[in-house]
């Protein structure tokens, strides 16, 4: 998918995770809050992994390593 869509998607995931975090902390379930934060981080990392690989490839070819 194109670059801008990716940014929007990650931003939306960030907002949802923040709201879920607050809802869970307010009702006293802090371990679940921490779990959802970690889950959000994992999901975003999985989305980004491909792009980071491409980034490193580009840098390698740029500096001709």
């Amino acid at each position, binding site marked *: 998918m194109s670059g801008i869509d990716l940014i929007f*998607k990650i931003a*939306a*995931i960030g907002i*949802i*995770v923040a*709201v*879920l975090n607050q*809802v*869970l902390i307010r*009702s*006293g*379930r802090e371990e679940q809050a921490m779990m959802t934060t970690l889950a959000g981080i994992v*999901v975003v990392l999985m989305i980004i992994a491909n792009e980071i690989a491409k980034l490193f490839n580009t840098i390698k070819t740029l500096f001709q390593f």
Partner: protein
Amino acid sequence: MFLKLIGSILVITASSLLGFIISSDYARRPSQLRTIKTMLQVFENEIYFMSSILHEALEKAGKAGDNEAALIFTRASENMRKGTFSSTERAWAEAVKYCMPRTALDKEDEEILVSFGKILGTTDIEGQVKNIRLLISHLEIQEKKAEESRKRNEALFRNLGILGGFAIVIILF
């Protein structure tokens, strides 16, 4: 594009409804416990002042309740009238087990109700009244716990349902 939109709306609606259903369970439990208490008062009056037969008293008590918890009393009175069970304890226990999925009551509430059935119909009037009073006091403790759990959980599961729906849609969109 349209299909994606319809799909996301379906997912969000389904997840929110799931959250609402779970949260409404927590909301209905205290009020059901209260109706059981009212019906027990009616039951006690029937037995003490009118000396009614057991299944008639149960049926009158069941009519006094106005939500799903009244099913327990009416089904127990039917069981006893038909005579399909070997003892009142079994008839009461079967009624409780049958109606449990239809009510919002807990596993603890179920055990308390089943243990009420053990003394039901076995002793004299004074013993029955004491048994009923014991059950009422147990149910009051349960009702307090249910109120607390409702305050904590009702809003939580409603919001979780809605937000979870949005999260799934955004990740999969």
